[in-house]
């Protein structure tokens, strides 16, 4: 499954869309609508039961896009119905202060992906960057998927092909 990664690929190389500043953001919402993820927006309710994970990703990050593909695949295979996976596009945050609408507490966002965990409706923990990626990989048991290697190999492959 390379649904989200295909967005990254298209925006990297397709001349019809790469210079459109909003194409990736629009396409991201379309893809989320057909995925097991829920596009969460500030003000919407938080799942009161079970675990809820809120993942923030950048559409320009191949690593983030590949991560979503891996999680979606694992989620669909295991049917982890006690976990709600909300996602959002970090491009929706124009300033660092905007992240306060997504994660409680004094958190300074410097890297993606971002990941917050809620248990029984209560905020539990937050991670970002490589630490968030590693924790999400562990949580969804997608350890066999080499997120970083996949993206790096793709980029190197494109470079060698030219």
């Amino acid at each position, binding site marked *: 499954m390379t649904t989200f990664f295909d967005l*990254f690929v298209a925006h*990297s*190389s397709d001349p019809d869309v790469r210079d459109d*500043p909003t194409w*990736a953001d629009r396409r991201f919402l379309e893809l989320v609508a057909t995925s097991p993820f829920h596009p969460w927006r500030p003000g919407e309710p938080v799942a009161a039961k079970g675990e809820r994970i809120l993942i923030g990703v*950048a559409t*320009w*990050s*191949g*690593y983030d896009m590949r991560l979503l593909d891996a999680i979606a695949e694992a989620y669909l295979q295991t049917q982890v119905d006690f976990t709600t996976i909300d996602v959002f596009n*970090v*491009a929706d*945050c*124009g*300033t*660092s202060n*905007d*992240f306060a609408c997504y994660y409680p507490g004094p958190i*300074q*966002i*410097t*890297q*993606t992906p971002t990941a917050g965990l809620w248990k029984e409706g209560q905020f539990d923990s937050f991670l970002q*960057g*490589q*630490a968030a*990626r*590693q924790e999400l990989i562990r949580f969804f048991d997608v350890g066999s998927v080499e997120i*970083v290697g996949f*993206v*790096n190999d*793709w*980029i*190197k*492959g*494109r*470079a060698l092909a*030219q």
Partner: protein
Amino acid sequence: MAFQINLGGEGEISGVLNQQGRWVVTAFGWRSSQTGESIAELVRSRHDFLIADNVALPLPDRVADEVITNNIPPVDSITWLGPTVQSSEIRRILKSGGRWIHNGVVRFIKP
């Protein structure tokens, strides 16, 4: 020897710092998204860093054979971290015949 400048966002090779807020640029505090290495660890493994304003690159005209941008926020835009890399600057620092490679794809060759 070709002069290659990597402006990549998440450090596909060298743990690049571009697009990181200046508050995270400390020798031990910042860790790259990809590998989790600190700046100090990357320096020890012989990476060179240029910490500078990304809007006005502190490099002379026509100096680079290749500029690489991988996994960076859209050029010529603004994110929550501030302004992103300017395509005009990439074009300025490239030599004639120099290439700008974005996510492995040649995006521009300087005439």
